């Protein structure tokens, strides 16, 4: 990977994944007249303005009513449509969790849930507006895919895969600007993770906003002679068990990094797999440490919870020292 910035003064361009979401949704809607958008008054924050002007009849705004929002999505799928149901991630998942469970996952209606501005993107607005529980909640639902794209390209590909699926998918659509990390020509595949950098001392599994930071951490460690494998684990469900098994067999320590509560997200999922494998490996699970965030910007809070390149590299060193 040449996009990581270690040692360089040039900052790579960074992008709001919601723009990629908005463009790709319009592209999908042009290709397929059955693509519709459903939102909870979030036309602006879900970046649906362009969709609305091009397809006014195909945007259903149910107002500030998330339970109805998700139920309506299930009904549209019953009626033969491909609904993209979007809303701020904390409200879409928390307020309508039972609808996501019963109407989508258990009923297997192929609705695409677009959780906008996830993680701690709403920084100073506080924990009511943070969505760091979503991965724990949603990973517990069988039959629901959970995807956390790391950049623009992956966001577009995740939308396209979900639109063609015969089951429901939740996609985190990031607001916090991130650089491109996906190599040119790489294709996102359901349940398969992408290795962005090879190494056999330790493996770091990262998602979303944490992928570019993990690549920078790997550069820092490489300068000390520690070679780290960096895996973009975009599909939090289904997990890529082969990638976990492969790492568990070939490196000496595992680290996971996510902008989510560590109680049940990516790291917890990987730990469950590793705990049941033959080899015992030291692990560090980085994320929100089961605590409501203090006041701060998204950047401040990522610092607070140790979700920086420097903190990730420290965690790798510590895990390796347990060996």
């Amino acid at each position, binding site marked *: 990977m040449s996009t990581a910035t270690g040692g360089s003064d040039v900052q790579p361009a960074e992008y709001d994944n919601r723009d990629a979401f908005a463009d790709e949704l319009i592209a999908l809607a042009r290709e397929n007249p059955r693509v519709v958008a459903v939102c909870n008054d979030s036309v602006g924050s879900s970046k649906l303005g362009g969709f609305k002007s091009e397809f006014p009849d195909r945007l259903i705004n149910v*107002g500030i*009513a998330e*339970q*109805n929002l998700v139920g309506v999505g299930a009904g549209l799928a*019953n009626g033969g449509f491909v*609904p993209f149901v979007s809303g701020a991630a904390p409200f879409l998942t928390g307020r309508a969790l039972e609808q996501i469970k*019963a*109407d989508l996952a258990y*009923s297997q209606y192929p609705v695409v849930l677009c959780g906008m501005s996830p993680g701690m993107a709403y920084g100073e607005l506080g924990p009511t507006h943070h969505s760091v529980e979503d991965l724990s909640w949603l990973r517990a639902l069988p039959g629901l895919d959970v995807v956390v794209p790391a950049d623009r390209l992956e966001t577009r590909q995740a939308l396209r895969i979900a639109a063609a699926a015969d089951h429901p998918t939740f996609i985190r659509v990031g607001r916090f600007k991130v650089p491109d990390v996906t190599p040119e020509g790489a294709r996102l595949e359901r349940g398969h993770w992408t290795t962005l950098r090879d190494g056999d001392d330790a493996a770091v599994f990262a998602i979303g906003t944490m992928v570019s930071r993990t690549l920078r951490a790997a550069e820092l460690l490489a300068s000390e002679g520690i070679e780290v494998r960096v895996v973009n684990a975009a599909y939090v469900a289904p997990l890529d068990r082969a990638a976990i098994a492969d790492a568990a067999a070939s490196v000496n320590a595992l680290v996971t990094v996510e902008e989510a509560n560590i109680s049940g997200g990516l790291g917890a999922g990987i730990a469950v797999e590793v705990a049941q494998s033959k080899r015992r490996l030291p692990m560090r699970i980085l994320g929100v440490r089961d605590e409501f965030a203090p006041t701060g910007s998204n950047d401040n809070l990522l610092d607070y919870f140790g979700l920086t390149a420097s903190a990730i590299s420290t965690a790798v060193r510590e895990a390796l020292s347990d060996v």
Partner: protein
Amino acid sequence: MIANDVAQTDLWRSLKEDLANASALQRSALLTEEARQRRRQNVRMISEAGQGHIGGDMSVTDILTVLYCHILRIDPANPAWPDRDRLVMSKGHCAGALYTALASCGFIPSSELSTFMAPGSRLNGHPNRLKVPGVEANTGPLGHGLPIAVGIAHAGMLRSARYRVFAVLGDGEMQEGSNWEALMSAAHYQLSNLCAVIDRNRLQQGAPTEETNALDPLAERLHAFGWEVRTVDGHDFEALIDAFEPSSGGRPVAVVANTTKGKGISFMEDDVSWHHKVPTDEQVRTALEELA
């Protein structure tokens, strides 16, 4: 998906035809007999399973009988027909009543009703659309069916489909906020292909609705939310048939069907303790005699 029970579907088709050609008096007689058979099946199912929601099953049976035998445009041989009318059973705990209706259409064989809630049976205590043909949504938690029906109605409007959508709700369930979210948006979008049927038996699990969290004036409230409201006797077949006429004014229709919980079994009628109590063998005998 297992194919429909062809012989039973043929019987159902001929009943439909008879009903279409019958006088009002004959029609009521035919529907009364059909509903009585279903109640008998339902009592046996609950007795065998040792579980079930008998009170609400009995109150909603006449509503489902009219809908499945006379109103809905459905094809049990093709349960996924894209232009079928939809019935979303929001009061999913009354799966027993739904299964007897689906069996009488031949979606599932009547012989399977005896597996109700048995280990491994398709007939779970709450319906599963992936296992039982004719089921539109996996309901059970209350307040889910109407939002789903609103989405199906939207889909029908968007593609100018002819189908109608019926959501069958319990009255206690109207205490769920999600229903009022759905009522607002259905009226806002003028979903005239949507009909919400409220089984107004006035009893919820442990007490009368009006003593728990009062719903009245229910019809006025629904009207204020922008719906065309029709209040009827939910055990009067002709009144129900009229109430299920399509919307006349471009608005969604709410049918408030006044019913009796435990209807048809004297010792259960309007008695809150029969929400999900299971009758003894002797009570089953008495019930079946009354429904003979």
